[in-house]
């Protein structure tokens, strides 16, 4: 659209009005948000679903190995979690995400139930794990849902003729392996990918499958040339720590990504509060009212009633664990509004303030 009518339209229509009518007419275009429609759904493995998404024009792209924040509404409340792309960028612009059901995982379980036509919101892609063009030898260590970014990287080998990789993928049982067929086909046609599955709770093992957790002997077998390899490990925290311990000293480079749910710390312990808008990072005691703690350090955030009522001091929690001191409730959901006069930090926090 040419700038002049565009400006006029921007002046004449408010974002909420535009977004409302866009959705009423079945479109996923939005004023300034990236919405995406589910166009396909596939049961990927036991307890895992692959969704193919068509994003609107606001989607800014990604590189294999990155993830993004996905937001969807569950019982009236918007929840945001990070998920990895499981395919390199496609020519049709669609995105593939694979989601594993998690016990008490409100968003993941709801996403697994989504059907084509459902609409979700996407944030920007982020993450450091990527496969640069050019020569490189890699060892991909994936456990459970940790396969998701490494699946995208394995597929990306095809467009990167000087890279080669060995992928070891752990799951408890065979029917929990995502992309098993796809990976076998990829390894069959692409000699630069060597593939190993490891199943820790499967009574019967097939040829080529490992039957145990990560250890030195296993690594020696799949990667005798470890000092020449860059190791990417992805999975539960314990797994990534084991991988780090076994390879960091010996490999060319180690990069680990673990899913770590935010944890609350005890009252009084110092925590770091990062304020995005003012670009400051301060240390405050956990459990102390944030407004007073920030004021004590010379800041003057907007505030009013100082009793949790007028909403003047509310600001968005970007990351971390907060606590409402009036009712003791923990607030860890990204995007929640914290009224800082009656809220405390319970971990390192990032606030939109």
């Amino acid at each position, binding site marked *: 659209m040419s700038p002049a009518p565009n400006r006029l339209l921007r002046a*004449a229509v408010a974002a909420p009005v535009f977004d409302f009518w866009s959705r009423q007419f079945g479109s996923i275009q939005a004023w300034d948000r990236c919405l995406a429609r589910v166009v396909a759904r596939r049961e990927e493995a036991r307890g895992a679903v692959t969704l193919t998404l068509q994003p609107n024009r606001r989607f800014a792209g990604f590189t294999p190995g990155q993830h993004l924040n996905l937001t969807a509404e569950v019982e009236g409340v918007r929840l945001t979690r990070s998920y990895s792309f499981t395919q390199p960028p496609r020519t049709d612009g669609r995105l593939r995400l694979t989601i594993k059901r998690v016990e008490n995982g409100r968003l993941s379980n709801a996403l697994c139930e989504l059907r084509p036509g459902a609409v979700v919101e996407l944030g920007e892609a982020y993450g450091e794990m990527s496969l640069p063009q050019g020569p490189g030898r890699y060892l991909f260590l994936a456990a459970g849902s940790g396969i998701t970014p490494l699946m995208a990287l394995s597929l990306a080998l095809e467009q990167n003729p000087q890279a080669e990789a060995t992928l070891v993928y752990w799951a408890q049982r065979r029917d929990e392996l995502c992309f098993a067929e796809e990976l076998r086909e990829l390894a069959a046609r692409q000699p630069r990918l060597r593939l190993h599955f490891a199943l820790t709770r499967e009574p019967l093992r097939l040829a080529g499958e490992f039957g145990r957790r990560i250890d030195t002997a296993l690594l020696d077998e799949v990667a005798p040339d470890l000092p020449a390899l860059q190791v990417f490990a992805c999975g539960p925290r314990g797994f990534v720590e084991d991988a780090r311990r076994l390879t960091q000293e010996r490999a060319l480079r180690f990069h680990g990504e673990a899913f770590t749910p935010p944890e609350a710390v005890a009252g009084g312990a110092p925590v770091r509060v990062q304020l995005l808008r003012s670009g400051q990072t301060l240390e405050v005691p956990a459990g102390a009212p944030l407004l007073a703690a920030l004021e004590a350090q010379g800041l003057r955030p907007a505030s009013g009633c100082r009793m949790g009522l007028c909403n003047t001091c509310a600001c968005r929690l970007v990351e971390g664990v907060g606590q409402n001191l009036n009712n003791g409730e923990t607030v860890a959901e990204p995007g929640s509004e914290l009224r800082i006069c009656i809220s405390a930090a319970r971990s390192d926090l990032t606030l939109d303030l």
Partner: protein
Amino acid sequence: MSQATLNRPLSHAEMDAFGTELDALRARTMAQVGAEDARYIRRIVAAVRYTEAAGRALLFFGAFPPAWVLGTLLLGLSKILENMELGHNVMHGQYDWMRDPHLNGKTYEWDIVGTSDNWRHTHNYKHHTYTNVRGMDDDIGYGLLRLFPEQRWRPFYLFQPLIAVIFALLFQWGVAIQRLELGKVFSGRKTKAQLREEFRPVGRKMGWQLLKDYVLFPLLAGPFFLPVLLGNLVANGMRNLWTYAVIFCGHFTADAETFPKSVVLNESRGHWYLRQLRGSSNLSGGKLLHIMTGNLSHQIEHHLYPDMPARRYAQVAPEVRAICERYGQNYNTGSMWSQFGQVVWRILRHALPSRPGKTAALVAPAAEAA
């Protein structure tokens, strides 16, 4: 009945117990808030959008009188719903828990000449924290009217029956300039430069609202420019009159009380609740009245729990009323006619010099001495 006999002063212990009961009711209710409330507010959003679209579309055929009347009514209805049940409530942060950026209390912008930012200050903070405290809550007469005998009489107030009508017709403009505190400029406590600075966002919002309702949409109608302009003017006027009536009924009925500044010193939660109760009054009626008033028909519940989704007020009202009864407090409610009649009486009566009557203290004297 005189005000003194309506309410019983509470001891500090009673006040704390009163506060604890209201806190518990709040916690019980907030625990139920969820999908149902989200669905409700989304339906309100849809109602606002569809009535606005239908109203504006009909006004394009405004040369045909029935279309003009219906279009104007629908647009007025849309603006009332948007200002009251949607905008006012969302700006209190009642739906922040949904984490929907379009329903966020700090960023929502409403369809009225006043800016949301100024409203959040004068209303959410000043009015709700210092409800009916003289000299702190500027909503008491909006600096224009003498509604309580405690306000000092001046000859200017003789004109207030007329001023009140003009104020009602232009209510959104009153809301828009409330934070500018023009009185301070006249008395020299605020510089012109300061006023200019503060006026900038207000002027921008005013300009945009005027452009939208009185230039853009009329122009879109081409030859029917005038009917559309008039329809928009009347719709804005309808909204002004209705919101004025509802808001005045909320705090200026016969039994509503005002307080001296000293009450807010070291105020306990129970005392704060009690003051909110004594300064607020409800409108009795059906579901339609509740929706059309943005649930400010439950002004008492709104002042006790300003950030609770307003559709829950009807649910907590019987319990609030029962708690008030147990503590010997008047639960000020009545029909719109009766409550608004009392407001009109105040406007007329206090145009003339008047002296404060006797009201029951908030705190029992014996307890205070102790």
